[in-house]
């Protein structure tokens, strides 16, 4: 039984079972009954990576930004730009097929917006990989130096919830407080290195007295000497509380949490064999590499007005802020490893190691494009190409050539002409013929 429900333009668009693909290179042949192949990208533990979820959330966020552009005309340009970028984020994903049957992302296009759920997810993966790399290198250096690894703690420091208008100042305040605390003799004597990750959540509990307020807090991964627990370096929870209260200038007892990073069954991480230590850091890495603001905190399909208000505040507050930073020996290790910047770096290749890529080996690639109708990534093409690293080098070269041509074109005035042509095409897309005639002086038919 053929499930094609209509073909509006057989050369360009295909409709099958309600799944609309806007691609000319779709694998679905006109008139065939082929089912679209949805993206399944599995993690090593067999669970699917959440591409679909983040793309759908991105669509909602884009619509929320559109809505904001209308509510706040004075900031419309900013919000529309965000909306366009997020709507166009990761329209496709090309994967390299690995010998074990898995998929490894090879190419995509990310918008890099702070609140984009897709980019936040990629950033958190990248930070997680970087944390694991830094931790294992710092430990290896310590073991070769002293014969013992570092001990690891997870410290969470908080302040009371604040209303939206005070959020920006409060984030500045807790960052300053941490900087001051890290300069204290007590801290310096105990903590050898740290990673700070700032997170903001919102209270959505309508029964709570703090309903609608924001909760900025910081997760800190601390590295201490192995003798920390049995020496004067040890800092009790109450002392951590007093220190934070003092440096943050608080007149109330804040909520803090300090825990030793242990394995799932409660073992101390240093008691494990070397090869198992890195894996056991997973929980702590996941905690500190969490998103700056959770998508579920600003995207509430059931409360659009609150979503819009939260998105606007987060967009204005979190812009140009460094939500993660390294300190002490971890900073030195991160510097020595020449890690890519989390805020501006590559979001496609999130792993830190270069892996076992053979330069001359061919690789198989498969591409999935986002389909609006199916609300999922659908397979479009499969190809055999050069090894990933060779392809990346080629892409870099092509990019350089394009930039060189652009610079040359800018000098000759051809760029201005190309921009004007693009503007004409953009407007012709949905403007009516009369409007185009008015702008360009007639002679246009309004079709692209």
């Amino acid at each position, binding site marked *: 039984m053929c499930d094609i429900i209509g073909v509006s*333009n057989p050369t360009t668009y295909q409709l099958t079972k309600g799944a609309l693909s806007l691609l000319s290179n779709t694998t679905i042949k006109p008139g065939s009954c082929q089912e679209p192949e949805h993206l399944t990208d599995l993690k090593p533990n067999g669970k699917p990576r959440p591409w679909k979820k983040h793309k759908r959330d991105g669509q909602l966020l884009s619509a929320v930004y559109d809505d904001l552009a209308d509510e706040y005309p004075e900031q419309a340009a900013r919000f529309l730009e965000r909306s366009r970028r997020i709507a166009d984020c990761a329209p496709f994903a090309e994967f390299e097929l690995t010998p074990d049957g898995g998929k490894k992302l090879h190419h995509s296009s990310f918008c890099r917006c702070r609140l984009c759920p897709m980019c936040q997810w990629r950033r958190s993966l990248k930070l997680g990989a970087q944390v694991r790399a830094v931790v294992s290198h710092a430990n290896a250096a310590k073991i070769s130096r002293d014969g013992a690894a570092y001990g690891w703690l997870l410290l969470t420091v908080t302040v009371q919830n604040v209303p939206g208008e005070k959020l920006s100042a409060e984030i500045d305040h807790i960052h300053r407080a941490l900087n001051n605390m890290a300069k204290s003799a007590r801290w310096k004597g105990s903590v050898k290195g740290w990673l700070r990750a700032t997170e903001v959540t919102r209270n959505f509990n309508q029964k709570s007295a703090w309903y609608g307020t924001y909760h900025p807090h910081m997760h800190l991964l601390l590295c201490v000497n192995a003798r920390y627990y049995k020496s004067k370096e040890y800092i009790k929870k109450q002392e951590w509380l007093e220190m934070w209260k003092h440096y943050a200038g608080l007149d109330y007892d804040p909520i803090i949490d300090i825990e030793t990073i242990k394995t799932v069954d409660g073992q101390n991480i240093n008691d494990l064999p070397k090869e198992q230590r890195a894996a056991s850091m997973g929980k702590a890495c*996941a905690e500190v590499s969490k998103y700056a603001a959770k998508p579920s905190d600003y995207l509430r*399909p*059931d409360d659009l007005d609150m979503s819009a208000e939260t998105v606007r505040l987060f967009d204005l507050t979190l812009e140009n802020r460094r939500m993660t930073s390294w300190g002490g020996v971890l900073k030195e290790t991160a510097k020595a490893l020449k890690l890519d910047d989390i805020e501006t770096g590559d979001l496609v290749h999130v792993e830190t190691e270069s892996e076992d890529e053979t330069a001359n080996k061919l690789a198989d690639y498969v591409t999935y494009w986002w389909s609006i109708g199916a609300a999922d990534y659908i397979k479009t093409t499969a190809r055999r190409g050069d090894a990933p690293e060779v392809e990346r080098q080629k892409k870099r070269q092509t990019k350089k050539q394009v930039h060189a041509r652009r610079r040359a074109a800018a000098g000759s005035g051809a760029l201005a002409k190309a921009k004007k042509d693009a503007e004409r095409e953009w407007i012709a897309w949905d403007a009516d013929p009369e409007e185009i005639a008015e702008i360009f002086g007639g002679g246009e038919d309004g079709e692209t």
Partner: protein
Amino acid sequence: MAKRKRQPWGNLPPDVGQFVSDQLARDWEELSRPCREVCRDCPADRDSEESPCMNCPFAGLSTLAATVTCASKMIRLKDKLDK
């Protein structure tokens, strides 16, 4: 200077874009409310890496219903402003 226009659903072909715009002109706020509220009180942690929502039929439904509502709100606001 000509005002740039953007298709509410990205780069749809003109005829489809027009059809979608016409549909969005309806007030979807109330019509889509049951769909938008279908996840209310669901115990799933949507933010978790292991979130079960990706495989839940209602997650897509509520997100798309909210997207349609936002887009329709925008179109109706624009119409209101034009008048």
